[in-house]
């Protein structure tokens, strides 16, 4: 692979300087989930993605030649002949944020793996972009299949938030369609809100967003709006990545939904303010074989989930894991 990414202007907003509050707003809004104390017990294997053919990219961003985006494949521990469930993480989120749902996958009898992007300095942060990082997914799938000598296991894919969007983008590029797919809190069309529009006006010129402050918007902290009482983590996020995803949340992006023919479960949280149910329901009809599920009090036995609750709440995670397991049962 070519280790030197092409010269490319980073996407930054004009401004007078870095505003820590603004930066944190982005990081909390777009990329974070509360940390979980227990560490991952995975055995990471780091590889780099350089697909031969570039994926289609949104018209709003210029495509470039393939860029190497590093990632890690984490095996969650089970070594079975069980079907593989690969979770596509959102770049910048610590792997521990997915512990609950990965455990649920394992408990459902699936061989859980996670695709974790990073380290974020390879390529340099200003070159990270959603549509470019997406190219890592087919490479990761190839590597997983290479490990399976008998090649009998069909692949299940799932993703949360931005990771789910990237997963859906990548599916048409796979050699073989996955058996089934689950996207949790992944917007299929824009659902603008004043909060997101406010975040879009924030100025930041740093390639990576880091801060330890929680911005306030109309008397409410961004973290409380998005995560409720759960504590926000502190991890860096490439600014370009955050701004690109924010642009999609506000103005939409091209997803090849019609060409995804496998069964797709689309999960929305009733109180998800990043990917609200209205950004998913109507567009789900464009998928040939989709199931839309809004979690919340309408299900009468639990409260309305926020964006983070979709992967952190064990009942939600078990529901998704059970659905995936049912899809691979004879």
């Amino acid at each position: 692979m070519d280790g030197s990414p092409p010269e490319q202007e980073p996407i930054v907003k004009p401004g007078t300087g870095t505003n820590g509050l603004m930066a944190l707003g982005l990081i909390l809004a777009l990329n974070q989930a509360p940390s979980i104390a227990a560490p991952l017990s995975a055995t990471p294997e780091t590889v780099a993605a350089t697909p031969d053919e570039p994926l289609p990219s949104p018209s709003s961003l210029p495509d470039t030649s393939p860029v190497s985006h590093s990632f890690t494949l984490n095996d969650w521990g089970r070594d079975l002949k069980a079907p593989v469930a690969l979770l596509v993480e959102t770049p910048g989120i610590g792997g521990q944020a997915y512990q609950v749902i990965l455990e649920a996958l394992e408990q459902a009898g699936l061989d859980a793996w996670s695709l974790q992007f990073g380290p974020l300095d390879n390529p340099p942060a200003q070159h990270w972009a959603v549509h470019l990082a997406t190219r890592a997914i087919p490479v990761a799938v190839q590597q997983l299949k290479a490990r399976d000598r008998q090649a009998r296991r069909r692949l299940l894919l799932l993703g949360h938030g931005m990771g789910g969007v990237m997963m859906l983008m990548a599916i048409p590029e796979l050699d073989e369609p996955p058996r089934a797919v689950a996207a949790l809190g992944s917007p299929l069309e824009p659902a603008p809100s004043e909060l997101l529009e406010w975040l879009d006006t924030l100025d930041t010129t740093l390639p990576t967003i880091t801060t330890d402050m929680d911005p306030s918007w109309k008397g409410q902290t961004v973290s409380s709006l998005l995560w409720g009482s759960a504590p926000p983590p502190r991890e860096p996020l490439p600014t370009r990545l955050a701004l690109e995803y924010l642009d999609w949340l506000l103005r939409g992006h091209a997803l090849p939904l019609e060409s995804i023919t496998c069964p797709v479960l689309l999960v929305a949280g009733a109180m998800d303010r990043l990917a609200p149910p209205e950004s998913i329901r109507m567009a789900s009809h464009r998928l040939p074989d989709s199931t839309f599920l809004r979690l919340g009090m309408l299900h009468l036995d639990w409260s309305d989930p926020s964006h983070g609750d979709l992967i952190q709440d064990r009942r939600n995670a078990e529901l998704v894991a059970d659905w995936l397991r049912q899809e691979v049962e004879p």
Partner: protein
Amino acid sequence: MNPPINHRIPGSARRPGPVGICSFLCPLLLLFFLILLPTCASTVPSSSPCGVQEGYWIETEDAATIYLHHHAASGPPVLVVHGISSNHYCWDLDPRRSLGVFLAQAGLDTWLLDMRGHGLASKGPDARHMKRSWNIDDYALHDIPAAIDFIRQKTGAPRLGYVGHSLGGIVGAIYASQLGDSALYSMVVLGSPVDFSDPDPLLQLARHAFLLGSGMPASVRTPTLARMLDAMADRLPALPEELLYNPQNISREAAMRMMDTVVSPLWAGEMRQFYKILNTGYLISADGTVDYVQAMSSITVPLLVMAGRADRIAPPDRVRPYYLAVSSLERRFVVAGRENGFARDYGHLDLPLGDRAQDEIYPLIAGWLVQHGP
């Protein structure tokens, strides 16, 4: 006449079924709400708490009776329509919770409608002729035209504004799509769902309740049952009321007053039509031949659609298709939730009656109607 409906619900046969132990209890609670609450509210106050200046019983072309409450002002007229199992008091509960007063003070000549069988309409001269077969189509294709014709005749104005909550917004869409929107200059709808696909457990329960209700008398007026509900009120979980409104957004006192005055009977005919709607997933006519959402593409009047983030009856994803279905060049979709600067996430009944509706909801309605006036 529109062609027959093609049923298209991709993947409808494959969905998880996360129903816990509470849902065992909830069909019972839902039935209480659908059947017993109208009993509690069958007594409608004889006078408005908000100083309505005049009211009119009007006979529709199919010989039913509607009632119009008038908050007079010198500006263009506005027809305001209540939701299912409700009446005009959802717009006129008290001086602080009165869209009627608010719009009149904004200069709009405001008319609050009691559709047939609701509110004072059920106290009219033809009360003895009330029919259990009345359905949603009757509201949309008879009551709304009668109200509009009366107001146009009374005021001399060629066009009206239209405000509808829940079913009131749905019948507005049916009226405008079937009879044309030329008599309207603008529309505002709050919490009006038009997409009933992918039924969640609540909708599935509602479907069974409507099926049961469609075979029962028009309204249950047994005082014993009402007393049973009252006696059980303190022992019920908070769930039923949280389905109807966000308790954080409406005071207990107002909620009790609301439940005393705002609820009107559910009619067997409308329950039968809702059963068909929930069974198919489509907003269809009572005879099943017209898909009203498809027909809504003929609507071109400026449209503001509002949904409450915490609305469990009409969640935003079921309301947004209303906004998407019309062809209006000027249209806006607003989710009343904290991410849009609202103090609280609004539920179904707090959209018209919440503690802050006067500060957060009414100004949006009045502003839209004034901005998109005749």
